[in-house]
């Protein structure tokens, strides 16, 4: 990719993506029944 500065913008967007993942996904996917399925 040759667009100047695209990488920094991309990186910031990517950081926001991962921050959103660690903030919101565990609220849905946290396993509250640990050990039950064994």
């Amino acid at each position: 990719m040759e667009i100047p500065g695209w990488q920094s913008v991309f990186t910031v967007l990517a950081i926001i993506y991962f921050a959103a993942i660690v903030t919101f996904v565990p609220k849905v996917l946290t396993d509250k029944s640990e050990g039950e399925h064994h």
Partner: protein
Amino acid sequence: MPYGLLFILGSILVLVFKDKPTIRKAITLVVPAVSFIAVVLTPKGIDFKMTLMSLNLVVMHTDKLSLFVGYIFTFIAFTGALYSLYNDDYRISIYGMLYIGASLGVVFAGDFITVYLFWELMALASTALIWCNRSKKAYWTGIRYIIMHLMGGGLFLVGMVINYVNTGSFLVGPVNQGLAGAFVFLGVGLNAAFIGLHSWLPESYPTAPIWASILMSVYTTKTAVYMLVRTSAGMPAVAWMGAIMAVVAVSFAVMQSNGRKLLSYHIVSQVGYMVAAIGVGNEMGINGGVLHLFNHILYKSLLFMSIGAALYVTGKEDLTELGGLRKKMPFTTIFVIIAAFSISGVPLFNGFTSKKLIFEAAATGGMVPIELLLELAAVGTFISFFKFVWFGFLRPNPENEAIAKEVPVPMRVAMGMVAALSIFVGLFPQIIAKLLPYVEEEPFYTVKTLQGPIQLLVVITIAFILFTKVFEPHKRTIMEFDRLYIGLGRLIPYVFRASQKIDDAFNYVYHRIIYIPELLSTVFDPVNNWLERVLESSEKLLDLAIKPIRYMNENLNTFLLIGWVDFWLYTPLSEPKISPYNGGNTPGLITRMLNRILKFGDTIGHRTSVTAALVEKKVVNGTGEQLSKILFSPDTVAPLMEFEHKVVDTLTGDFAAKAFYGNAISNVARLFDRIVIDGAINGVAAIVFFFGERARRIQTGLVQNYALIIIFIVSILIFILSIKGGYS
């Protein structure tokens, strides 16, 4: 293969000297050292051939690719053994050497038969490694692991055999077309932890003892990556799967707090880079994928060794409880930083070199979306390792500072060797590049190639410092894809029921329209007339019903497939036709399996005969009256029965249509259980030590399970060959 045998021999020696720790540990060091030197001295172009049961096997084949993978496999075997000198569990040494030997066997194999044998040995040995942790959790994790891997091995085998039917050769080579390609993709993909088939990996690696996870982090997935280079290079599906692996796994990784689990997700993610590069398939892609395999083995084993060191000293491996190790464990801290920089692709460290090749390969190969996904994963990797190093090692934590001390010298030396090689590759990539399968002349370090990673490093450092709290680890279990399978599994009873209903409806129509009228028409005319009327009045309805049947007949393959799926879904597990061989009340798995096959024979037979009759006699558009007349005339019934017999015999007759065969197979399985396993347990002392207590657990039915899986796979094969016309 000779190198593989060397390790297998080593594992037997360890067993012999299991009570003499010094000799045992010396063996674990000498064998990898000797094999490393041997691999380095081995020239390319060796083909060691053998003939077994009229099959031409190439049990050892060397070229640049297999040697390159051989170098790193044996190097890391040595450092792993050095690191594990303080491991007092001889079983880990035995299974570990078997496991490494099996991986080397796969790498240097020139034919798929040899590959398959070592592939399965690898699965068994790594399961045993998980079981070296004697907890209940490890037991169940191991069970799930072995089931997954036997399925994967089976799919791979089906791919190999279809490829053999198509090409007449078992030689290792590209298998990227049609059904064979699809099966190999899935079979090898399971070992490479393709998303959807990956949940065994982050579950099992943190469960195995740390000495074992260091080995496991290296061999299974990388052997699979090697096999993908051989079989599936250049498949776009592989490239996309790689990119998805890189992003999905890193997204899961940033949410983890258990150190080894976080690292395990990064294995999936980094293997994604390799898989993507192999899928891109140009020369630079293959070079990048293979170099990334080399680099990843270095930094990932160093990361596992570092968290292992922290675990060894503090007894903790959760990032929420670690930290405070910087002052007391300076060497380990430096090593973990080197490893973190390497995996993040910071210039001057090894990960940079291969990632550069992979990004360029994707860009020049015209796969920009893949490149972008991999760039996204690179950001996640950076964040994840900032988190890993900061929370795991650097941040202050007085509790750990009080107990921490540097790990013993051999562990430090092992980590130092791996770290040194990581930096060496980072500083002098051109030297390593000479060993790659294709010529690599473009310089690794230019202003252009450095721009991206440096920008990334700066922006993410600032972001992490500003938002450390966001990425702070929390102790919790994030649900995985296997929950999806469990959920789907819970749906199965409903599918059974629905399928049973459909079947009942079919049987109702079948008996009412075909059998009963035949009887009644000769005995009870009034009823027959009534039925005739019903048939006439439902002419339109029948027309509707017949259309799909005709369609199915025209598409016999699809029809057979439906029969197959239906057979699996609806056949009840109880009500055995064959009396259970064990004389007990519960039918064994084999018996149940055979019942399914017998029932399948019935089902497919009935349906085929109806369809055949309808289509043969061209009544598909006829009236109900015509239908019944034609169907019940002797002219119709005879060819119909013949057709039924043909289909049933082809599909199931030779295999298990008769109870006799069913009993024979159960008897063989029982004999195998009794003679091999019991014999091993009661008689042959060596094998007793070898499988120990686990064999007793196997005896309770795992061998039958294994037989079941094999029969399942064989039946898939027969099915595929029968529809492909290769079986008649």
